């Protein structure tokens, strides 16, 4: 048979690889910066763009979509060509994908710092960027499938299945979660409200972890681990079971982020059951990875690539053991809203994603530049800095989470709460300091890697087009007796459809009933839409990322009811586009904040939190006192809300600004009584209006009435 000659495109791999290194460092720097703000609030510089609430989404987005995203594309573009024995389908699409993705990252960085956010975690980007993501993702998909279809290898290796599942599921998640109604060029409201918004968001959020941070990286593991160890994967059978079980089960587990909230009980239980089941495929995958190295552990001692992979896979195992544990209600009651969750995700992020990315880069760069790694010793130092960094990061945070949760739940013998919220925060500040040291060590390691790779690049010569040859794929005469899965493996499109069905089932079962019963969500008669001023104030709350530190969800626990007030009901959130339940309590819950303090307290507290509560670690929000509220958007905001079903009276948008000023002036007058002079159109006034409203509606009626619509 005639062998065909062709070239692998290394240039696109190089571009994505460089982007990976750059955004690793950028994302980690942002992370370190926000970590320092926990014990040195002045590190916010008192500027809006560098304050925690805006910088934290920048950190998470940079790590997930810029660092890990570029890492995935690096690995996919390298391995896919080789597994399919062909060049990428279209160089043009490759480069469109590359520049499109980098443009999205740049736009994300700018808009997030400017405060343009949807207020939904890990999906903060506003609607024009959401559309751009969809377009670039589709371009990637065409390129991916085009390459698979013109391959010279009969079988689709298991890594490719993981890539296919990643592509199709991320597309589905992104589209469903991004339904939003644009108000202005950079402001939109989530299509969903309250409980439904929360369910969709965490169905998305959890599966972003599953299908952006896990499945593609598993694909990379199944390719690069055998390559680096120079032996096939331990059990190919296990990898097949691993794949189907993982994608089938993962998609269901989202509601475990909402245990003890106002989410319907059945959905919570569903999430828990599937989360527990998830341990089986996850550990199957981990063991498959580790056993691949059986009899080759001597190589691990020598080779930095394998060292990184072993720790990465171990961290994957730890995180996926911990995940199901955290989704047990009794454990979740302790862990949720604390730093425990942050420690958990960083075992995954720093250990699994970070170390897999580093391993891959150390493997790829010498090969693509036809040379050896500049310094093995530096790489080994990077490995130890990283490993110690992870431990120093995670252990203090586990400790902090556990301690704080127990303090929250402590009562005196007289039945009073034993600790003020602030005491539980100041108590764990030493842990925050240690955590940032761990992060700094990890970052230092990454910088060492950048230097090492730079030197490697300098000493080698880049092979832009790697020559290869393979016989073409000839159409076989169909052998009658063929097993269906083997047939499937040769049919990427069928594979795509089947993966979509598998993940869609979970999504539909989980989401549909909540939507069907929309009319049955117990509405509370006294819960009314926000006034125009409160709505504007709420948007400021979203803009400043208050939800990154404050929850608005009182769980039905004795301590939470004692500390914050009546537990939260599903019917209270029906006008919340988007929901703002939050996922972490660095500050206290705000679900019943309305009416707790006078207006002047909030004014002074925003200007300098430490003047009202000494020792507080909340940043100052000085600009809110000076910024003039933009009332030009009020009418369109009311209109958008009406479209979403919020029952404002007809024509209300026309008088909205008049109502807004009326309420603003009354707050300004109120402040004046406490000797605070402020114009009624300052942003702080709108924010105070919102804060004073939260959770008040059901207080208004002593006896809440449940109405079934």
């Amino acid at each position, binding site marked *: 048979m005639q062998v065909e000659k062709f070239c692998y495109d290394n240039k696109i791999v190089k571009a994505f690889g460089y982007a990976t290194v750059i955004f690793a460092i950028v994302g980690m720097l942002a992370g370190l910066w926000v970590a320092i703000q926990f014990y040195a609030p002045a590190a916010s510089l008192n500027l809006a763009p560098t304050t925690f609430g805006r910088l934290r989404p920048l950190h998470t987005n940079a790590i997930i979509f810029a660092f890990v995203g570029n890492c995935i594309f690096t690995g996919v573009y390298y*391995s896919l060509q080789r597994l399919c024995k062909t060049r990428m389908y279209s160089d043009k699409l490759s480069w469109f994908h590359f520049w499109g993705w980098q443009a999205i990252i740049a736009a994300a960085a700018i808009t997030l710092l400017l405060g343009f956010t949807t207020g939904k975690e890990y999906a903060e980007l506003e609607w024009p960027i959401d559309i751009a993501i969809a377009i670039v993702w589709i371009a990637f998909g065409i390129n991916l499938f085009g390459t698979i279809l013109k391959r010279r290898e009969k*079988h689709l290796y298991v890594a490719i299945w993981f890539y296919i599942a990643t592509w199709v599921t991320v597309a589905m998640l992104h589209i469903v979660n991004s339904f939003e109604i644009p108000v202005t060029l950079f402001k939109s409201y989530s299509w969903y409200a309250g409980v439904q918004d929360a369910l969709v968001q965490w169905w998305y959020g959890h599966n972003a972890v599953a299908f952006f941070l896990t499945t593609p990286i598993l694909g990379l593991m199944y390719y690069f681990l055998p390559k680096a160890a120079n*032996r*096939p994967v331990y059990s190919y059978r296990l990898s097949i079971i691993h794949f189907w079980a993982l994608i089938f089960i993962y998609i269901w587990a989202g509601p475990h982020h909402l245990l003890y909230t106002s989410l319907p009980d059945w959905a919570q239980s569903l999430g828990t059951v599937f989360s527990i089941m998830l341990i089986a495929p996850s550990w199957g995958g981990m063991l498959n990875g580790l056993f691949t190295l059986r009899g080759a552990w001597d190589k691990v001692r020598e080779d930095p690539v394998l060292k990184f992979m072993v720790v990465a896979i171990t961290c994957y195992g730890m995180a996926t053991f911990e995940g199901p544990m955290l989704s047990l209600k009794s454990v979740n009651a302790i862990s949720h809203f604390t730093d425990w969750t942050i420690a958990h995700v960083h075992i995954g992020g720093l250990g699994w994603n970070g170390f897999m990315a580093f391993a891959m880069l150390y493997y790829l760069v010498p090969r693509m530049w036809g040379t050896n790694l500049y310094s093995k010793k530096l790489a080994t130092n990077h490995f130890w800095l990283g490993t110690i960094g992870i431990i120093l990061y995670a252990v203090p945070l586990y400790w902090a989470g556990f301690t704080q949760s127990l303090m929250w739940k402590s009562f005196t013998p007289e039945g009073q709460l034993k600790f003020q919220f602030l005491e539980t925060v100041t108590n764990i500040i030493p842990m925050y300091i240690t955590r940032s040291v761990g992060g700094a060590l990890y970052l230092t390691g990454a910088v060492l890697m950048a230097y090492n790779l730079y030197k490697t690049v300098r000493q080698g010569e880049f092979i832009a087009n790697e020559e290869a040859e393979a016989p073409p794929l000839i159409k076989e005469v169909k052998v009658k007796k063929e097993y269906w*899965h083997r047939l499937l493996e040769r049919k990427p499109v069928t594979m795509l459809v089947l993966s979509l069905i598998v993940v869609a089932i979970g999504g539909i079962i989980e989401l549909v*009933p909540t939507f069907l019963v929309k009319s049955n969500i*117990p509405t509370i008669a006294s819960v009314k839409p926000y006034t125009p001023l409160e709505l504007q104030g709420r948007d400021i709350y979203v803009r400043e990322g208050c939800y990154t530190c404050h929850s608005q969800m009182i769980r039905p626990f004795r301590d939470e009811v004692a500390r914050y007030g009546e537990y939260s009901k599903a019917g209270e959130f029906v006008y919340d586009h988007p929901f703002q339940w939050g996922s972490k309590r660095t500050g206290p819950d705000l679900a019943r904040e309305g009416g707790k303090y006078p207006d002047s307290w909030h004014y002074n507290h925003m200007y300098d939190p430490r003047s009202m509560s000494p020792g507080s670690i909340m940043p100052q929000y000085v600009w809110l006192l000076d910024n003039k509220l933009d009332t030009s958007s009020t009418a369109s905001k009311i209109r958008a809300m009406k479209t979403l079903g919020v029952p404002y009276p007809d024509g209300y948008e026309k008088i909205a600004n008049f109502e807004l000023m009326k309420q603003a002036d009354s707050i300004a007058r109120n402040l004046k009584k406490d000797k605070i002079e402020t114009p009624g159109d300052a942003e702080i006034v709108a924010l105070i209006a919102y804060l004073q409203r939260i959770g008040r509606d059901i207080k208004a009626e002593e006896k809440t009435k449940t109405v079934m619509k």
Partner: protein
Amino acid sequence: MKFIHYIEKIAGVDIYGLISLLIFVLFFTVMVTWVFRADKKKIKEMSEIPLH
């Protein structure tokens, strides 16, 4: 206010659960059967794809 009975309000809701469970179990059984009956040589060949 009770939130636990939402799903009961959908007509014929049990079918959701039954179908999904059925698909899951069937798919799984067929897949696992295939995996363990598959030809050893083929499996070996596939697992060596990255090494060529």
